[in-house]
């Protein structure tokens, strides 16, 4: 089945082949919406169209969480409960989901356990962030298998800013609220999730959601000027902050196979559409540092929406995934029309915000080789704030070590250049260095200065970036030599401490 604008209203045996309305569950009813501007955000739809003003706009860029709502989706037998930022999620992206907002939680006078606990612990002061916080914790309440640890609660809240309370009573409320556990959920998602192409709009202006890869390939080739939308955690800001008038949007959320994960013994293949939350445990299984980078990646809301492919394809010089995966030797798979090709991930990034991606071409998947028995790996994210912050520097190192001697080396950095990049000179010098002989580290440490000439910006100065880049290599070498993490890390990876 191929999505094609001209045939969008073509009737099929079971009605139109192409759906022309998004469908979702809201306030206990199945709802269809067929007329909306493609760039309409979910928050504007709620607050302006529906007059549902419980969700607030605090920042309009997915950083404060005041607009958090919950999307419930069925995936086969599983039901997922995802907290998302409604301010940068487009209305079309809730197709196939059940939308749960703060107004849905209480039943009559009976508050939801999270709400009850938030009142009991004095968890609200000005109250403006509170609906978003309650929704984040409600999602945790739905999904956590057992009463969550405080660390897990804080992770869940990383994307919810509160300026009044200092968070202590909020974390306490999450502890008190407990979990849904074996109780049936009040929200079960939309029955018979659609598996047909979606096209709302016309040739000049549309929100499209192809149902399979062929349909996506053909439709994108026909509309290379359209914007590919994955999670929307970046594209959403083009609209709310850049005020771009996006008229043609192809959403990837329904493309069959694009969100597949193949976790094998030698490699991990992540479809471009795999959201960061689903990717996290698989990456964490490769190495705890990778799990920690993912834990600190955006926030629960951003990880629930943002995708692996989106993070790589937007080519941010500070995207956290790219340097980690480059160090691991990942390859990228792209498709244009019927043509597919693969290339080493580092070759994809050509220049600042310029990638090796042609018109009509899209990222299909990334394949990450797993670590071998001789491989040592470290990844570090350094940012002004530990959680929910964009990196000043991200460094990832993979060294093959035999008898304390470094053989092969892959070192990749984010934040040090216009693109995430390997430190080729330093790699050359570090090969042959011995972990048990600090004198042999010097060449690699010094050569980093040849590899990068970073910029100064509001996150960090060039001098700081250069110094940290060097110090992170030093730290990696110390750890690979055997320094215990509690001696080298201010916040060791969660798995390493537990």
């Amino acid at each position: 089945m191929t999505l094609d604008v001209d045939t969008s209203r073509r009737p099929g045996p079971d009605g139109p082949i192409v759906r022309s309305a998004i469908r979702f569950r809201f306030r206990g009813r199945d709802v269809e919406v067929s007329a909306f501007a493609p760039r309409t955000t979910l928050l504007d739809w709620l607050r302006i169209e529906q007059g549902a003003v419980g969700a607030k706009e605090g920042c309009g860029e997915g950083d404060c969480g005041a607009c958090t709502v919950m999307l419930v989706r069925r995936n086969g037998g599983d039901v997922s409960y995802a907290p998302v930022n409604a301010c940068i999620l487009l209305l079309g992206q809730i197709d196939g989901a059940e939308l749960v907002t703060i107004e849905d939680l209480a039943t009559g006078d009976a508050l939801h356990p999270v709400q009850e606990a938030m009142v009991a612990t004095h968890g609200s002061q000005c109250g403006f962030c509170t609906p978003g916080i309650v929704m984040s914790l409600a999602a945790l309440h739905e999904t956590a298998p057992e009463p969550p640890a405080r660390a897990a609660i804080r992770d869940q809240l990383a994307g919810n800013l509160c300026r009044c309370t200092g968070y202590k009573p909020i974390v306490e409320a999450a502890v008190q609220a407990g979990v849904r556990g074996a109780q049936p959920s009040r929200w079960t998602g939309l029955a018979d999730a659609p598996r047909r192409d979606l096209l709302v709009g016309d040739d000049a202006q549309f929100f499209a959601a192809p149902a399979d890869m062929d349909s996506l390939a053909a439709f994108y080739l026909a509309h290379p000027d359209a914007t590919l939308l994955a999670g929307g955690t970046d594209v959403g800001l083009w609209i709310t902050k850049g005020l771009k008038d996006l008229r043609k949007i192809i959403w990837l959320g329904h493309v069959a196979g694009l969100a597949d994960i193949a976790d094998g013994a030698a490699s991990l293949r992540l479809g471009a559409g795999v959201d960061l939350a689903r990717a996290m445990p698989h990456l964490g299984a490769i190495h705890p540092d990778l799990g920690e980078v993912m834990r600190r990646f955006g926030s629960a809301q951003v990880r629930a929406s943002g995708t692996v492919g989106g993070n790589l394809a937007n080519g941010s010089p500070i995207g956290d995934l790219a340097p980690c995966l480059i160090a691991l030797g990942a390859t990228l798979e792209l498709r244009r029309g019927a043509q597919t090709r693969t290339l080493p991930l580092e070759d994809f990034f050509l220049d600042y915000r310029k990638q090796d991606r042609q018109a009509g071409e899209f990222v299909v998947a990334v394949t990450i080789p797993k670590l071998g028995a001789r491989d040592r790996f470290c990844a570090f994210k350094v940012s002004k704030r530990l959680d929910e912050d964009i990196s000043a520097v991200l460094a990832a190192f993979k060294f093959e070590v035999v008898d304390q001697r470094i053989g092969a080396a892959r070192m990749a950095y984010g934040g040090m250049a216009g693109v995430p990049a390997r430190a080729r000179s330093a790699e050359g010098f570090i090969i042959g260095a011995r972990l048990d002989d600090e004198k042999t580290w010097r060449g690699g440490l010094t050569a980093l200065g040849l590899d990068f000439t970073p910029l100064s910006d509001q996150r960090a100065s060039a001098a700081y970036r250069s110094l940290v880049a060097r110090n992170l290599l030093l730290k990696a070498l110390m750890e690979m030599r055997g320094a215990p993490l509690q001696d080298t890390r201010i916040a060791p990876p969660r798995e390493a401490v537990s």
Partner: protein
Amino acid sequence: MTRNDAPDDMLATVRKPVAHDSARLHVQGGATYVDDIREPAGTLHLAPGLSTVARGKILSVDLSAVRAAPGVVAVLAAADIPGKNDVAPAFADDPLFAEHEVIFHGQVIFAVVAQTRDAARRAATLARVEIEPVEPAVTIDAAIARGVTVLPDYDFGRGDASAALAAASNRLSGRFEIGGQEHFYLEGQVALAIPGEAGDLLVHSSTQDPTEVQHVVARVLGCPDSHVTVETRRMGGGFGGKESQANQTAALAALAARVTGRPCKLRLDRDDDFMITGKRHEFRADWSVGYDADGLVSAYDVQLDARCGCSADLSTGVVDRAMFHAANAYYLPDVAVRSRRLRTDTVSNTAFRGFGGPQGMLAMERVMDAIAHATGRDPLDVRKANLYAPGRDLTPYGMKVEETDTLPALIERLEQTSDYRARRAAIAAHNAGQPLIRRGIALTPVQFGISFTLVHMNQAGALVHVYQDGSIHLNHGGTEMGQGLFVKVAQVVAEEFGVPLDWVRITATNTAKVPNTSPTAASSGSDLNGMAARIAAGAIRGRMAQVAADMWGIAPDGVTFREGRVFGGNESISFRDLARRARESRVQLSEAGFYKTPRLDWDRAKKTGRPFLYFAYGAACSEVAVDTLTGEMRVTRVDILHDVGRSLNPAIDIGQIEGGFVQGMGWLTTEELVYDDKGRLRTHAPSTYKIPVASDVPDDFRVDLFDNVNREDTIYRSKAVGEPPLMHGISVFCAIVDALHGLAPDRQTPLDAPATPERILFAVQALKS
């Protein structure tokens, strides 16, 4: 014994940890903020057009494309103002619209009024504004070089600081830079203006100062104050950022409503809010201190240079308060405190929780650390030695500290409960091995003066009605921004009438009900409004008691109010029935209460008198870990002991202390305002400006109230709590200094605020070199 001194068990509502009155609404998304008010039909929306240049002459403004954009109804600029182009709180130096020149990047030049907010924002991008740029003065150094201030220099002191410094056995001096802070109230600036008949205007404003918004709107529209009513039910956070800074947003909405005749709303985009509205003042402190071998200070000289931005705004009071707190809790025998209010071509800085006090206090705490490091004594011992004490109790501005016993006792207790000495020893042992991850600890005190230092602002009004069914309407001039003021004042009124708290209906602050109010600021909200409300409720209760006394033939002082009933002799009547009886007896059941703070007589010109009714005290002990390879820092434990006198509501007060601490910690660690050399703020959204998140707050975070009573006759002997806890964040900064100090024990630790990873790492480098 008056009721004010009643023991807790004689009080039914006051001093109880009752929940915030809106808590159940907050958690259901049912609390209405200005942007949530259902818009009247035909409501229009504004978007401001901002200067892209920090300083320059406006050559031309072409708004034709803006006017022609879809959905645009009107475009407003200076020429459209019927009254004065001035939204400043005091000195007529903040125009609503830039007219001939721009004085900071982000200054509003025009505003679009359109059918939707989206249309207005998009249209605003179409303006063609030509500005001849002038090299802006962005930094403190540039401002000093240019030699321009927004207000005259000011100083006070005692004795001869220079002579005493020269005579001191030991001397230190240094320079310390202190960054500003964005309020980041979660609800941005917003106002909805609804025109009525004959020029009436109702403005819903998210403001800490509805009276000020009323004045400013009337001034801009050129109409009497009486035509303008301002209402504020609640703010989604204020922190000082909606004291004067709400004026412009409200005035823009009001002007649009006047011009179009339709309801008009302006809700600033977050990035615009960052650029348009003022922040905490950045300061530089140049200090010299003289002291003896034990670290006892004999002389202190400090020059406080404040980066005020492009206009005066509230900088008189802000910088004065920095000066008032330059000694923090310490006696400084010979002292000179000098200040400059520097003008830069950046957004005008404004009130922010602590109002300059935190900056003055932080500089002094850095000095205490420097003395400790130079003498080799424990910083806590140096601090304790210098505290005010009987006979050593005069502040640099001449006010006598009467309550000298509280802070030493409080510190002593915290020292015990935090296990300070043992932890310091353990940390010293840890750091002795020169580890990669260093640890540090600090215990720092806070002594914060309570009252507006502008004496006339220390007044408040309240309006209380008792209806015939016994329900009670409460209104006062204070505003609710999350701090729990409304519930505290309601507790006071419920206590006065002896009724359950939910009989007292809390209502929105409204300039038509209680006029001529002061801003809810300076931590004064419950002190002032609690008193005014009690005076109003007390008058009604007195009249109701007379009705009951007459009915029962007893004296009115034998009538008591409790549990929703009124008792006297062997008789009782429900409060409700007595209310009806009073009405039938033609007794007034409504009262306007008024209160003014006693004892204040500070004279700024003469530099004499008493600026504060009392001091609020507290101390915090923080422990940190610092990564010497990256500069990253984690706070691992915090203990706070804080003095709120007899708390009106311990749950609310603890919330203020916890939240204040975290806000102060953010100010001094991750929150960094970065301006580029063109005067553009580069950190103008939460993606780049980092306030603390949940994981920045340690699991081990212990907060307790110090058992104390206000010696002044404040409302139920409580003390103000809004601002003082913010300054407990200083303990984190000093703990970081402590962690680094051991790298080079004989040198001062070169760390400025905020202590970002970058500043920490460069301090490490400097100490290692």
